[in-house]
């Protein structure tokens, strides 16, 4: 009895959908687009709009972009002063370059540390892999902020690390690590390492062991077989992991502000300053837009490699 009713209902809802030119499949495809529109494109448009405005003492603290001029004419005032300002003051260029440098070095360190770990997990007996992966993911269960804070306790002059090294007799006077670039690297590598390990593990785990046997059979020693077979075939994982570390590291704000020194200039901190200390929203927005442009290139690279990987997986 209920079956005709429900089929009637589905057919009527289908009719409703088709009135808007939509099928069920179309709806499923639509969801991510709506999501991106609401939470990426619209906010981006707002930020872009603000970046073209002028700072003003008002609420909100910038001038309107669109104005109704006399006679009902709509005028658009684009103000490039904020972007020009980024170019004139070397502070911004230095901050951008420094952010890129720190992100790049952190990514390389993550790769050097993460690759052996991912390789080790992928080669471990099958029953070990689950627990080992769990250990990689486990730190996420504690708040990111607390974990970064904990490093202060470890790295400070009277901290765990210095006390331990002095107790060992390796050093006489405490090392000055906290509030330097070194402590930023430690913080970023520690925080983002799982993002490197997981995609690397995913590609290494799929790697066919008979390929390594074939390489050995053809006369390649283990190191050579690794360089000629394992490494090139794990390239998609290397690219994915590197981008997952690099992109958020460029804009990182929490780690440099907690662990970095007064001389560390990163773009995230500059942005925060413009926004909250100077209350110059247009310049802050321009900084954000420029940062985005710096990141769009790696994101596009990332997508390009992902597509290639998917194509290869199909074959």
């Amino acid at each position, binding site marked *: 009895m209920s079956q005709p009713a429900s089929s009637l209902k589905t057919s009527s809802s289908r009719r409703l959908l088709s009135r808007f030119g939509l099928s069920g499949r179309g709806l499923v495809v639509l969801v991510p687009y709506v999501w991106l529109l609401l939470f990426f494109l619209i906010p981006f448009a707002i930020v872009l709009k603000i970046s073209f405005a002028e700072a003003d003492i008002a609420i909100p603290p910038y001038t309107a972009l669109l104005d109704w001029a006399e006679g009902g004419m709509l005028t658009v005032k684009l103000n490039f002063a904020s972007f020009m300002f980024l170019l004139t003051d070397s502070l911004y260029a230095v901050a951008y370059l420094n952010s890129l440098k720190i992100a790049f070095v952190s990514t390389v360190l993550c790769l050097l540390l993460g690759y052996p770990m991912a390789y080790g997990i992928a080669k471990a007996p099958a029953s070990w892999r689950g627990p080992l992966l769990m250990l990689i993911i486990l730190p996420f269960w504690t708040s990111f902020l607390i974990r970064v804070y904990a490093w202060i306790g470890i790295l400070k002059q009277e901290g765990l690390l210095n006390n331990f090294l002095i107790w060992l007799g390796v050093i006489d006077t405490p090392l000055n690590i906290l509030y330097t670039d070194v402590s930023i690297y430690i913080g970023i590598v520690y925080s983002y390492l799982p993002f490197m390990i997981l995609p690397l593990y995913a590609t290494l785990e799929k790697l066919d062991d008979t390929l390594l046997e074939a390489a050995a*059979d053809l*006369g390649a020693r283990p190191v050579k077989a690794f360089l*000629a077979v394992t490494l090139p075939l794990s390239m998609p994982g290397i690219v994915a992991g590197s981008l997952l570390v690099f992109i958020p590291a460029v804009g990182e704000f929490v780690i440099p502000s907690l662990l970095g020194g007064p001389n560390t200039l990163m773009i995230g901190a500059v942005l925060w300053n413009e926004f909250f200390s100077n209350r110059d929203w247009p310049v802050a927005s321009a900084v954000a837009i420029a940062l985005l442009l710096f990141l769009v290139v790696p994101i596009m690279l990332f997508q390009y490699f992902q597509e290639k990987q998917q194509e290869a997986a199909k074959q």
Partner: protein
Amino acid sequence: MAQTTTQSGRKIKLEPWQDPKEQPYLRIEKVTKKFGDFTAVDDVSLSIYRGEFFSLLGGSGSGKTTLLRMLAGFETPTSGKIFIDGVDMSNIPPYERPVNMMFQSYALFPHMTVEQNIAFGLKQDRVPRDQIRVRVAEVLDLVQLGRFAKRRPHQLSGGQRQRVALARSLVKRPKLLLLDEPLGALDRRLREQTQFELVNIQEQVGITFVIVTHDQEEAMTMSSRIAVMNSGWIAQVGTPAQIYEYPATKFVAEFIGSVNMFAGRILEDEPDHVLIQSEEAGCDLYINHGVPVPLGTPVSVAVRPEKMSISREPPPVDSGRNVTRGTVREIAYLGNLSNYLIELDSGKMVRITQPNFNRLTEMPITWEDRVHVSWQPFAGVVLTQ
């Protein structure tokens, strides 16, 4: 040209396993391999000679692949030793063995072109670049894949990949080539064609081949000798004809081709013949060779379907031996042959294969006909185990 000389060369050559002066090229000595409690290879000894096309034949789990992987060096024997050209292989890693393997999955490097795949082994040996080019081109010609040198493995068909894998394992001119189910992934037509190609290539390059297969037909067509393996041990080693005509055990007789097996007891045992009483057969079985077992021992007699004949009339010389009666139950006409399924008066079903000499004879044997089933004294083989 090369082929004719090898063929004529083959004729005058004494088969190496019969020549006492010949040294085996590959010697497997009492090799056992255990995985935990499971014994995959159980005390296997084998001698394989230079230029042989040797097959390890067996079902899945017979230990044939494990044995092959021990030859390549991917597994180490739990006990026993392997010698290649007199050198103990115990402590020699795969990348230093004078052996190449063609993998069942082909294991082609997906990120390299056909050419790069084949050149890989030569590069490991630091062969000069111009020589690599020449040798890769040579071996690509041999497998007729010259046009595909720049392709990636995923752009090739299964048969082409198989030939790339073969080319890659041949290019280093190994002393011993191991092939793990090389034709397993190919369809029937391609497989038959490739069998002959493999034999031709083996004759051209003169490398010793050891091949693992579960396909008895494949082993029969290609091999100089076959080792039939069953649950880790070797049931029999011999030429295809020896294995087929003189199986050593019931397992071998049943594994290779089809066979009719009669249970019986020995009545008479002389050096030149043996007489066996068999209720299953419904007659006494006379076989023209003696057997080294006491009278009364229960034995089996194996008779191949094509060595039996059927007729409506009794055979001209009826001694009451090797002649029995039955009823035709099934006929399968295959064109060149017909298979008959006959129910003997004892109730035992036997399979008989007859060539179709004549076109549709006037009075063909048909369903439910009463027939005489007979065979010659040389047809049967007495098996004690």
